[in-house]
């Protein structure tokens, strides 16, 4: 059964890239939901408990990535859905902060479709039992 993913990013270009990536190889046939800021992202996350993975940009207007993670933790929304923070920089402190906020993993830019496939594969392996 095809998997569902959520991408949260304020760049249209990134959404186009995600579409390309999610249409190829092992990811072909996936359903992808799109949000252009943290608030929309949170709404879509709440609406889709079946998501296999969320790709979350760090820098966005109206609720950035860290803020979304913080709210998710406070409200304990769908804790089983892994959220991957997508970012350009990655000092060890940034990563620690992200994980502390609840990010399951980091995806560093620039990435290629293969990197997304890898992250998805890892997430599916470790997926906690939940509604499919």
């Amino acid at each position: 059964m095809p998997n569902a993913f959520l991408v949260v990013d304020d760049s249209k270009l990134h959404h186009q890239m995600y579409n390309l990536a999610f249409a190829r190889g092992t990811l072909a046939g996936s359903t992808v939901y799109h949000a252009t800021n943290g608030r929309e992202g949170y709404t879509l996350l709440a609406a889709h408990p079946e998501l296999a993975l969320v790709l979350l940009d760090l820098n966005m207007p109206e609720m950035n990535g860290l803020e979304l993670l913080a709210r998710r933790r406070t409200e304990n929304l769908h804790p089983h859905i892994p959220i991957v923070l997508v970012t350009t920089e990655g000092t060890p402190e940034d990563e620690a902060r992200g994980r502390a906020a609840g990010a399951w993993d980091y995806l560093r830019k620039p990435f290629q479709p293969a990197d997304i496939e890898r992250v998805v594969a890892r997430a599916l392996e470790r997926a906690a039992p939940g509604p499919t």
Partner: protein
Amino acid sequence: MAADENAFSELIQDYIVECLPLAEQVGDAFVALERRWKEGDPGDNTLAALAGPLHTVKGNSAMMGIAPAQTVAHALEDICALLTAEPRLRGDEGAALLVSGSGMLIDLVRRAAGGAQPEAAAEFAEQARAFITSAQTGAAASESAGESTERRAGDRRITSRREEAASEPGSVVRVDFRRLDALLEVLGEGMIEQSAVIELYRRLARKVGPSDEVADLDRALLALQKTIKRMEGILMETRLLPASSVFNRFPRLVRDLAHAAKKPVRLVTSGGATPLDKAILDRLGEPLIHLLTNAVVHGIESPEERARAGKPAEATLDLRATSESGRVVIRLSDDGRGLDDASILAKAEALGLEVRASDPEQLRALIFLPGFSTVKEVSSLAGRGVGLDVVATSIRELGGTIEVSSRPGQGVSFTLSLPLTLAILRSLIVEVDRERYAVPLSHVTATVRTEPDTMHQINQKGVALWRGDLIHVADAGELLGTGAPPNGSRRFYVVIGTGARRRGILVDRLIGHQDIVVKSLDPTVGRPEVVSGTTILGDGKVACILDVVRILDQRVPV
């Protein structure tokens, strides 16, 4: 560049569509900030708000494998972060780096599809690094480490994104302008077909005589006309863009020109919201750039000259757009030395043109003639100051007019008048010796029945007394070479005019007003002086459109 192996390379146009406006927005803001910092105002948090777009361009460039753009964007981001944290560093050096870097970034993004050279980018990154390091060495005395400055700046980067304006509301769509052109073409065809239907209806009505069906048809056609008119209105609106879309390149241009010419010049623009058809806007840039370049390079005096003349050291270029009764007027003025009437007169005489030195307006209008450069020095920036005839031709091709006025020692002012739209023209159809012509209504002042007591001859040239003025009246048949001998058939004359000039044109009949679709003249036909295009009338016949402006420009034959 890794773009070939990059799986996203097919998205290169989308990359440009997203990142070019961001880069330009950033670049424009830097140019504006440079000016403010020069005036001693370190400004608010405009700078902080620019970090977001830079971050996006950096990230996107990285994703697309466009390393030079990524490098430059990163360097700019770092400089921005430093200057955001340290307002005391906001000065000429930092500003110059930001302006040149953003110019480079705009260029790199624009040419991303064609591949970019990395050397310039690497060089800029070096300059940025040097600037930041030397600034931080000064700041390091009071800070524990360079990293903490960057860390604070990094945090600011994330939080400042919230202050950015929200991204485009979902009700805006991006449309390829060619689609709008295609729509306009189809609408034009529709209007031609509509004219044909109306013509057929008229003939039918005459044949059949009044009846209920004819009356119904009449009403239905009227309703159709109204609907098509509304469609035209809405379509024209979608093609409108604000004048600022062409104006906003100019502050940077003037800044660069001023630097190169070593003269302080500032550009003041107003009326940026004035709407213009995109097709016209696209072709307006070049002539305006010519005029601006001429102004900076030749019109504005050196700082010493200005001081001697008691003028402020910094020269001002004033560019404004306004809409006036269905046309858009763009005025560019400078406070430079003005036109040199003596030079123009000398040049005119050298070219064998006859001029009346007593009429400065007529004299100055000569500068639009080819070969008429009175500038003595050659400058690498602007050549010989030539190009005014090219400018005039470009403006004319857009259906516009250009006039110049000057006050010696005080400056020059160019006034461009442009139609709101290229494609559909409200016109008056006239008949001359059984040929029909369209006269753009925007230039028709009046139509007058010829009465013997108002028509006179002075020096064998026709004149008419019209509203208390004597205006020259030309015979349309002669003007247009119809070849028919004069037979007193001219019942009317049409007063055409632009600005202060007026002329009458004698015709046989006035057929009526019509909205016509303008079809440009095929180059095969040549470049007639009196005709600016053609159109298809309701009965399917082609009619020529009179080039009113050229006709008015024509010197009255001796």
